[in-house]
């Protein structure tokens, strides 16, 4: 067993993990962050996307021990109390989801994309979300959601209310 300390959604957690434990399993099983989901066994779907030290990663492809000493943000850490993150608002407003399974990963990948490129073109959005698969929407409304999120975020922090 290995001892790890990881800050998740602003709270510091200490844990004993087997080195083979995947970060996504630690998040879900050990500290209850079940908002982050597993959608594949091949590192392709991106449903498990979280931010590790501020950048998007697929948490099924990181060992929990590798995250020792890091900061993780999951979908459950995005909202500010009752205020949704603008990306969450945008996915709701633009109907950027159907079954919702890909959504936690889509939202986290979008947060990462907009942090690097606050005004992406449609092409840049599609390429930026290349690592996230959706089996329902056909992507059009997801692309719209990301564009709208970019507008909301450039318009200032107050626009993201529920």
């Amino acid at each position, binding site marked *: 067993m*290995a001892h790890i300390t990881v800050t998740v959604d602003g709270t510091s957690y200490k844990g004993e993990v*087997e*080195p*083979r434990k*995947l970060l996504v*399993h630690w998040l879900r099983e050990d500290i209850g962050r079940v908002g982050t989901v597993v959608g594949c*066994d*091949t*590192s*392709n779907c*991106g449903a498990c*996307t979280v931010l*590790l030290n501020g*950048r*998007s*990663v*697929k948490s*099924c*492809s*990181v*060992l929990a*021990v*590798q995250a*020792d000493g890091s900061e993780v943000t999951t979908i459950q850490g995005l909202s500010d109390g009752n205020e949704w993150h603008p990306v969450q608002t945008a996915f709701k407003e633009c109907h950027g989801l159907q079954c919702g399974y890909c959504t936690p990963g889509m939202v986290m*990948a979008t947060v*990462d*994309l907009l942090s690097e490129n606050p005004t992406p073109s449609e092409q840049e959005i599609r390429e*930026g979300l*290349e*690592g*996230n*698969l959706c089996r329902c929407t056909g992507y059009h409304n997801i692309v719209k959601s990301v564009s709208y999120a970019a507008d909301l975020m450039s318009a200032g922090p107050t626009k993201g209310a529920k």
Partner: protein
Amino acid sequence: MIPVEFDYVKVTTIDQAIAALKAGGEDSKIISGGQSLVPVLRLRMAEPSVLVDCGAIDEMLGVREDGGSITIGAATTHHAVMSNPLVQKHALLLAQATATVADPAIRHRGTTGGALAHADPAGDVPAAALALDASFTIAGPGGRRTVAAKDFFLDYFTTAVGPDEILVSFSIPKCDWGSHYAKFNRTAQAWAIVGVAAVVNVEGGVIKEARIGLTNMAPTAVRASTVEAALVGASSAADITAAAMHAADGTRATSDLHAKADYREHLARVITARAVRAASGI
């Protein structure tokens, strides 16, 4: 699936890494970004005794200028490499090839050195390293050695890095030639069916010299030497297309569910012409 049990050590120096590999015996393994290894572990296609994490060794991180070349630490992530100003200025081809690897999240974790050490024949980085005449610094129990790109890739997933050794960094002679990486694939985040990495030196509208690496046309990335020779003196699109007809010469393309060998050979010819035209502006 859940990987088999293994031990894990995180080291901060190359010497510690080599000692940890030795202590773990023949089934010990380096883990860098884990973007090839963790999927393999999950499939239980690898059962290491110990993973030695080299992601926190200072010497293996970052890009620095070394006189006439730039040196890239093996544990530098794809994202850090492709957005690095020194790489963009002196080894643009490497940035272009790296930008086509997988997707943003995988590029945030996966490392360029890991991709080179892994040596997947469909990987995008080896062809760029070959075309850029990279050299590799390898450390092991007997000390350090430098291996040229042409001697580095040995076979499917096999390089000059021995099981008790570690790839520390690789160096690229500064190259201000025109460059382009053309990757042919059919879906998002897919591996190359064929890829072509080209750097071309053009003077007065005439190609003086070209170096071309091919992805997925043999058990390792290979240079298209016949095309390189045929390109000298080329000054028109027709010249380039004619030279590119040799792109499959001497290759050993395989057939798989993505493409048959003869289709790969056809693609190599077409994509080589595209890559050289984009790189040369001709």
